[in-house]
């Protein structure tokens, strides 16, 4: 168990990185608390796998240091770091039985055979493969293989951290739910630090204490699900988290008002920004009220998704999404108002203003 410190990590795959573009990881400088459950969220190619490989020691970062509980492990091997990692695609040892696959990491570490047997049988139970233990792993289906990969990571419960790289992608929804709750239970029981990469924000938000959002090789925000929802630090977070994502509208600042096109939006404070900055305002669809008062919009489409409706409209030439309740009336010449407390101001995509 350990607190993981990433001290100004940068990584480039090529030999001579010059510009920021050459870096798969631009700059990661963060601390992951001991025993925390982190979900790592981000689009394809943003560097999630790279970051995990650096933590586990499969990759040596081009710059920076990694510390486990304050001890520098940058130059230690994967084995010395004592970390488990489950990969995006199932990796199994074809010629071994299911049982031997799970026992493999324990045998390599010289765990007594009686202990191995107990742990492997427990794990077979958890991943629901008890009946398959003596089968050769080669003939299994993709999701069974992935469960074995998962089991090989979890069977070592004395590790410093377990890193999961989208481990449940190939698994069917019901089993996904079961495995996720098992994972949560094991995490509570053994208290390892857990990093869980996923594309699926529901998975991330329900699973983790803290959600880490990555974008173009940088961590743009670490926070609780509520923080990511209410105060996205970067327009990307606003757009990526939430369904539909945050509305981001180009604007000009004028004291405690923001001008979107010709319309003035009232703010609850007067933000400070350099005149050259690209200013945008962000407002979540949940905090836009539709009615007969406020600023005019042109409604293009209404999607009824059961619990509520999503109204797609055009506001000053910009597309905007609005969430309205099922029973709410949508008038023909609709108007909208923004909840001033829910407006975030962005300069060059980063949040400014009430810097609390």
């Amino acid at each position, binding site marked *: 168990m350990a607190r993981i410190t990433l001290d100004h990590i940068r990584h480039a795959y090529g030999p001579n990185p010059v510009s920021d573009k050459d870096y798969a990881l631009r700059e990661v400088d963060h601390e992951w608390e001991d025993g925390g459950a982190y979900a790592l969220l981000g689009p394809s190619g943003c560097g999630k796998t790279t970051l995990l*490989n650096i933590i*586990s*020691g*499969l990759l040596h970062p081009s710059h920076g240091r990694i510390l486990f509980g304050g001890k520098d492990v940058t130059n230690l*091997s*994967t*084995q010395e770091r004592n*970390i*488990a*990692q489950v*990969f995006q*695609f199932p*990796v199994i*040892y*074809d*010629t*071994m039985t299911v049982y031997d696959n799970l026992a*493999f*990491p324990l045998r*390599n*570490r010289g765990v007594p055979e009686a202990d191995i047997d107990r742990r492997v049988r427990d794990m077979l139970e958890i991943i629901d493969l008890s009946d398959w233990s003596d*089968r*050769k792993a*080669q*003939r299994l289906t993709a999701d069974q293989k992935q469960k074995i*990969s998962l089991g*090989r*990571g979890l069977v070592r419960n004395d590790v410093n951290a377990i890193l999961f790289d989208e481990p449940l992608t190939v698994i069917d929804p019901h089993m996904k739910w079961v495995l996720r709750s098992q994972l949560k239970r094991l995490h509570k029981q053994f208290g390892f630090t857990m990093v869980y990469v996923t594309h699926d924000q529901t998975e991330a938000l329900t699973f983790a204490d803290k959600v880490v959002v990555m974008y173009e090789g940088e961590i743009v925000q670490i926070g609780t699900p509520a923080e990511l929802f209410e105060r996205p630090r970067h327009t990307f977070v606003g757009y990526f988290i939430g369904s539909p994502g945050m509305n981001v509208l180009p604007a000009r600042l004028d004291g405690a008002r923001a001008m979107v096109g010709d319309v003035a939006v009232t703010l609850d404070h007067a933000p400070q920004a350099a005149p050259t900055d690209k200013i945008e305002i962000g407002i979540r669809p949940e905090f836009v009220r539709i009615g007969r008062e406020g600023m005019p919009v042109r409604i293009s489409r209404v999607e009824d998704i059961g619990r509520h409706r999503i109204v797609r409209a055009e506001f000053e030439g910009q597309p905007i999404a609005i969430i309205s309740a099922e029973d709410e009336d949508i008038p023909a010449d609709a108007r909208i108002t923004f909840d001033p407390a829910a407006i975030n101001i962005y300069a060059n995509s980063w949040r400014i203003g009430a810097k609390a």
Partner: protein
Amino acid sequence: MEKTWNNKAWFLVLPVLVLVAFSAVIPLMTVVNYSVQDTFGNNEFFWAGTDWFSQILSSSRFWDALGRNLIFSFIILAIEIPLGIFIALNMPKHGIGVPVCLVLMALPLLIPWNVVGTIWQVFGRVDIGLLGHALEAIGVDYNYVRNPADAWATVILMDVWHWTSLVVLLCYAGLVSIPDAYYQAAKIDGASRWAVFRYIQLPKMKRVLLIAVLLRFMDSFMIYTEPFVVTGGGPGNSTTFLSIDLVKMAIGQFDLGPAAAMSIIYFLIILLMSWVFYTVMTSSDADA
């Protein structure tokens, strides 16, 4: 959709049938034809039945040559397969080293058999050959013309030099097809170098190894040109393999009947051995 049976389709395989007939079946049948007849010249043939076969099978000359062949093939496989695997494992997987190694490995394979023989014939000579001379100089009593052990060592060394590359290239092809994720998982699981070989690399190389073993077995079992050029089957009969004996019989003595019978026995042995290798090496796939 209804499948239409159309015998015209046979015309499409006809070219292949004709080719195979000319290249394999017809020569083989001629051999079979010779093997059951006797002649005293003048193109007159008599039915000989299985006489030639029993004569061959009861001659110690045949069994000695067969024994030498088996020992030779066994030594060749025992050296070339592990050595080939070892070299393939140590070849670079990325960068400029890859093409360099591949070209170096391919070089011996590009040299024709008789030239290989000549090279080693000269290379090993005590008077002018680099190898022979060097061994002489450091006090090793080496002479492949007089000493059977030296002759064997020379022929084996030559074959290893010539053909290990083939095993290397086949194994290398198997190795580079292993995704990085397997090695990463092995590191995470704390696998030793041996475990990585045993559980990741060897299973992935198994298929190409089967091909390598079959090719090297058949080829070494049929070896002719190189020992013929280097030792001529000597000293004495010590490097007279089946093929050399066969040629002596067929062309040297013009005993077509016995030579044909021997060819057929030879062919059946190779077929049988290849089948055994194949069955043994693929049998472990079936249990699961």
